Structures are given as C-alpha cells and as structure tokens.
C-alpha cells in the first residue's frame, strides 16, 4: 500500500503545494470575508422589510406584501448561507478523499464497515460522475459490496446543498434529523444489500480489473490551497443552483402568501392517507438536481400542514436516487442489481418518512 508521503504518487500535488506556500498568508482574507458575511447576514431581514413595505409600499399583512417580503428575505439569506456553509464544508472535506476512504475501509468487516463507510460517505468530497471509478476501486481492494453501497448511498443522500437549505429554512434540528436519517438509510441499505449476496450481478470485468493506488494530494495541501478550492466550490455551486433557488423561493413565497393555512393537512399531513409518503417519494425520484429549488417549496408546504416526515422523505428521494448516477452505475452493475439498489433505497426512504411522521 502506498503511503501518503510516497513521492512517486504525489509529485504533482507537492509541486503546486510548494509554489503556493511561498505566496502569502490566507487567514486575514478569510477573516475579512467572515466579517463581511456576518454584516451582510444581519442586514438581510431589515432590508427585506424595507424593500417590500417601504420601497414598494406594500401593506404589511396583505397577501402580496407577505409574499414579496418572504421572497426578498429568503433569497439573500439562502444564497449567503450557501456561500458560507459550502465554503466551510469544502475546507473540512479537503482533508478527506476517496483514496483515504478506500484505505480505511479495506479489511473492515460488514457491520462496522457499513457504519464507517456511511460516515466517510458524508465527509468525502464526491461527484456522482465518480461513482463508477470509485465503485471499481472499492470492490477491487476487497471492500465488501454492501459496505461499498453504504458509501455510495450516504454520499448523495446527504447532499450539502440540501443540508444547508434545510438548516436555513427549518433550523438545526431538522438538518440534524436529515443527516441522522440519511446515515441510517445508508447503513441499513448497505447491510441489506450485503446480505443478499449480489456479487453475481456485478459486471465481470470489474472483478478482473486491477486498480493501482492513485494520486492523493489531500494530506499536503496548504491552507491557501484549501481556501482557494473552497472558493471555487462556492462559485461552482452558486452558478449551478441560483436559478433553482430563485424559482423555488418564488413558488414558496406564492404558497406562503396565498394558500390558506392547513390546506394540505388532509393530504400530506400526519393524519393524511397512508399512501402520501410513497406517493411523494415516487414523484421525487426523477427530480434530481432540483434539491436547491425543492427546500423552499417544502418549507411552504410544511407551513400549510404537510407533515415533516413526508417532506424529508421527498427531499431525500430528490437528492439520493439520481437518474444520471444510476445510468453511470449501469456500466458496472447488471440491470437486476440496479433495480434492487433503487428499490431498497426507495423503501428505506419511505420507511424513514413514516418513522418521522410517527415520532414528530
């Protein structure tokens, strides 16, 4: 096994590291950005009230006034929260890598391995396009199939954009619940898939492939490089989601202003029909990548009487089972295994929805 310090695999990382380390101290810049962020965040609410009631002269308490104030409060708040939290999350994640996860997980048993894999799946930076090479790398190094699945489920189900939005719109309790239930789903689903002995449904070439120990620069990045990667990640995510956030908050604002309170209690509420959870989960499966736009709508729905468990199940189905990732996984998994994988994850999400509706 190649160690982190092996110069043969890390020449590139070390080279850029040395070049960047000579530059300047990144901390004052980060501190200044933090101050500016705090200042901006604290003026969002008064500013939104001034815009809607002062500038536009919309009366307080009116439908349109409420909707407009909601919009101008939520848009900057969510975009600020996304920038700040994605920055911090990316810096934390720069200490983890798929290569590191693979080293930690190889040789771990089923059970403990699933728990570790699900936890690492949250903190390891992961793009759904990497699902396939990662799958091969894990399986080839002897990590059991079920443990590999725990990782592959946790990474997308606990989505950083969804997490930030849930935190911003529902508070830390719901955000924490989301993480806990995502972890539980990843662990249990991995265990179930492991028990089913599905190795025969993995494409044969995967077992024949020999996977070399790869490039891993994670351990030797300078703070400046970590911050610069984080800035880049914030930029990429904002460019990708701002339109969804605007539309989502717009729809949320309209619901907030116009739909009567408790209008949804009968359909999506705690005492609504049993089929409401599976129905919203099935509806959410094809909605991948709209996570950023979903959260504001969910908040408005919950406010009008939808049950929180149903809403969370919806969110997890939107982010957790993505069509593009499933199509990519087809290159290493036979259709039967894809179907079982999607099926088991879906059932787990539905059960979590019921559980929260019963508990909360």
């Amino acid at each position, binding site marked *: 096994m190649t160690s982190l310090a092996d110069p043969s*695999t890390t*020449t*590139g*990382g070390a*080279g*850029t590291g040395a*070049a960047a380390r000579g530059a300047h101290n990144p901390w004052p810049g980060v501190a200044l950005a933090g101050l500016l962020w705090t200042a901006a965040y604290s003026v969002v609410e008064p500013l939104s009230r001034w815009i809607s009631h002062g500038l536009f002269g919309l009366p307080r308490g009116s439908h349109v006034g409420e909707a407009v104030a909601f919009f101008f409060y939520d848009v900057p708040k969510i975009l600020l929260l996304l920038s700040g939290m994605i920055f911090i999350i990316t810096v934390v994640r720069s200490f983890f*890598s*798929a*290569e590191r996860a*693979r080293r930690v997980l190889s040789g771990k048993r089923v059970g403990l391995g699933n728990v570790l894999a699900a936890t690492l799946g949250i903190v390891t*930076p*992961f*793009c*759904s*396009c*990497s699902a*396939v*090479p*990662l799958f*091969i*790398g894990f399986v*080839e190094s002897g990590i059991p199939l079920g443990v590999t699945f725990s990782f592959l489920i946790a990474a997308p189900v606990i989505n950083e954009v969804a997490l930030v939005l849930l935190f911003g719109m529902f508070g830390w309790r719901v955000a924490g619940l989301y993480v806990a239930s995502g972890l539980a789903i990843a662990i249990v689903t991995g265990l179930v898939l492991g028990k089913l002995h599905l190795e025969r449904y993995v494409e044969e*070439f995967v077992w024949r*492939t*020999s*996977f*070399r*120990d*790869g*490039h891993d*620069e994670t351990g030797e990045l300078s703070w400046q490089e970590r911050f610069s*990667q984080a800035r*880049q990640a914030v930029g*990429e995510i904002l460019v990708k989601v701002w339109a969804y956030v605007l539309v989502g908050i717009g729809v949320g604002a309209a619901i907030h202003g116009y739909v009567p309170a408790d209008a949804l209690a009968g359909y999506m509420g705690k005492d609504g029909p049993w089929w409401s959870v599976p129905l919203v989960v099935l509806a959410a499966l094809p909605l991948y990548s709209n996570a950023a736009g979903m959260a504001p709508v969910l908040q408005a729905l919950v406010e009008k009487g939808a049950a929180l468990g149903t809403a969370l199940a919806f969110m997890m189905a939107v982010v957790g089972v993505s069509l*593009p990732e499933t199509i*990519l996984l087809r*290159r*290493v998994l036979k259709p039967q295994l894809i179907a079982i994988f999607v099926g088991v994850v879906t059932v787990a999400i539905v059960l979590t929805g019921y559980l929260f509706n019963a508990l909360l």
Partner: protein
Amino acid sequence: MTTSVDVIEVLGPGCARCFETLRVVRHVVDEAHLPCLVQKDESLERMAELGVMRTPAVAFDGKVVLSGRIPRAQEVRQLLGLA
C-alpha cells in the same frame, strides 16, 4: 515555450466537469503552442490502471497529477512547468 510532457490525458466518464477540465487543459496547451497530445479518455479500464477514483482527473504521460476537481488554467501551467 515547451514542456517535457508528451501526452496529456483527461479522464472522466463524460460529465460536464470532465468537459470543463478538457477545455481548460486545451486552452493552456493551445495558448502556449505546446506540441503535446491532449486526449479525453472515458474508459474505466484506463481509470483503474491509473488509480483514478475521483473524476475529472488529469494525467501527464500516464501519471496522474490532479484528480477530483476542475483545475484552474494557472494550475495546469504550473503542473506543466510553464509558470
């Protein structure tokens, strides 16, 4: 300007991030009029051979120099020894 690198490979299954990486690498190579060959490789076998678990990845003459993110042009220049 010149570099000792002959072949630059951009590895990835063909998602937007991989194409963006290819664009950045091509831009640097064209700008400096480098004679190196730039290739986009979507084969899983090649990724396994080079130990790539995070895409997009960039390899110089069969050696991975960057993986898991889209590089900035300046970074590619540094890696190529141009800057």
